[in-house]
């Protein structure tokens, strides 16, 4: 039995209905624990004061915003190569979630930037590339909305996603030209030594796990409702009087 079996929408619906409650529960638990821990049981940072607590939302949201696009890229490739409807619909369902994550990262970043850098917004490379990512999400969703035939829409958005990914990477490189920027570098890299103290580190991991499960749950829900929508269309077409 291969994994591809679940690319059948009906099978996928069955499987996901069993998985969904667990994923949701896990995401709820991790989020509540992580956020409570982060917000109430950690000390204030000596430089940043209590504003450091935004990190528990900001960093996971930023991570998920990027990973959601990555998932859409993979799903798009699968759709173009193997033409499994579920993967196209999953890509479609991931986009709004990714968009919201991007927005959350941008907004929490802006809120954080005010006390830290003294400005709501700066044209720092990382912030700028996030803004561009935001535009990619909007364009991707707008294209989905604008095309009526679902298969055509899946094809075209997949191609856009692939081409867009290349350009997103290019722009990330391009904005680095400007300046080193104000934003700190990656703090969760495995090879370098940690630059976030342990007190902040563990709840952060928990909350990242919570965001990952939340993302999974939302994508599952979205995919399921897309499948139901398609099914309703098929049924309605069959009922149509001749």
């Amino acid at each position: 039995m291969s994994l591809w079996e679940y690319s059948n929408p009906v099978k996928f619906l069955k499987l996901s209905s069993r998985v969904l409650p667990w994923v949701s529960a896990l995401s709820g638990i991790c989020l509540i624990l992580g956020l409570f821990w982060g917000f109430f049981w950690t000390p204030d940072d000596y430089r940043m004061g209590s504003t450091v607590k935004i990190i528990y939302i900001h960093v996971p949201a930023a991570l998920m915003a990027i990973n959601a696009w990555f998932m859409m890229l993979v799903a798009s490739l699968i759709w173009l190569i193997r033409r499994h409807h579920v993967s196209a619909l999953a890509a479609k369902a991931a986009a709004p979630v990714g968009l919201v994550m991007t927005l959350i990262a941008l907004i929490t970043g802006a809120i954080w930037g005010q006390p830290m850098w003294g400005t709501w917004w700066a044209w720092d490379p990382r912030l700028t590339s996030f803004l561009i990512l935001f535009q990619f999400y909007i364009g991707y969703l707008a294209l989905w909305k604008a095309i009526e035939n679902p298969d055509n829409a899946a094809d075209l958005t997949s191609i856009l996603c692939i081409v867009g990914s290349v350009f997103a990477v290019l722009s990330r490189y391009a904005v680095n030209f400007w300046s080193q920027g104000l934003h700190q570098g990656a703090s969760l890299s495995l090879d370098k030594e940690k630059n976030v103290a342990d007190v902040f580190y563990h709840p952060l991991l928990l909350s990242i796990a919570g965001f990952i499960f939340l993302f999974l749950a939302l994508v599952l829900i979205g995919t399921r409702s897309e499948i139901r929508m398609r099914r309703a269309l098929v049924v309605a077409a069959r009922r149509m009087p001749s």
Partner: protein
Amino acid sequence: MRAVLLRDLKLAMRLGGGFGLAIMFFLIVTVLVPLGIGPDLALLSAISSGILWVGALLACLLSLDRILSLDYEDGTLDHLAISPLPLENVILAKATAHWLTTGLPLGLASPLLGLMLGLPLEGFFWLLLSLVFGTPALSMIGTFGATLTLGLKRGGLLLSILVLPLYVPTLIFGAEVARRGSIGIELQTPLWMLLGVSFGVVAVLPFASSAVLRINLR
């Protein structure tokens, strides 16, 4: 392929065809910006090369939707799709025609407009060079976007939204070349990047576009 290119150029030259309009638009943007931000020349000269690049980009953008939509609406694309000509060539011919009628004249006109915005003299050459090397990428990316929004009634603004983030690397490298040129510092790296983007885009996107076009003609 020559036939498509020549016909597109001829159409552009004809009444209402749009040749020269891109430059006019470019000129007008250059005029509007000082009107909007006031006549401070030091300020203007600091932003001139960037504004000129943004203006060129917008002028390109405005003329994108005519690359394909007229031919789509009147059925020419259907007929071309079942003609002996490969669709990739059609795409390439159309992008080339767009560049010849938009990007190239824009680049050639840029020194004049640079003058009006107080761009330092030593920047003229690099501005021109960066536009001439960068606009082929703009035309090709724009053609790709135009194929994506083809079926959609007046996809004009949707087209802009899809295409603008794709324009970002070209814009940054191009504007950086022009900026560095105007203040006379080293500009090898962005220049090579700009050339790389242009060549890469022109080599790869015709295939993506013709795939998209086939889907949209369905």
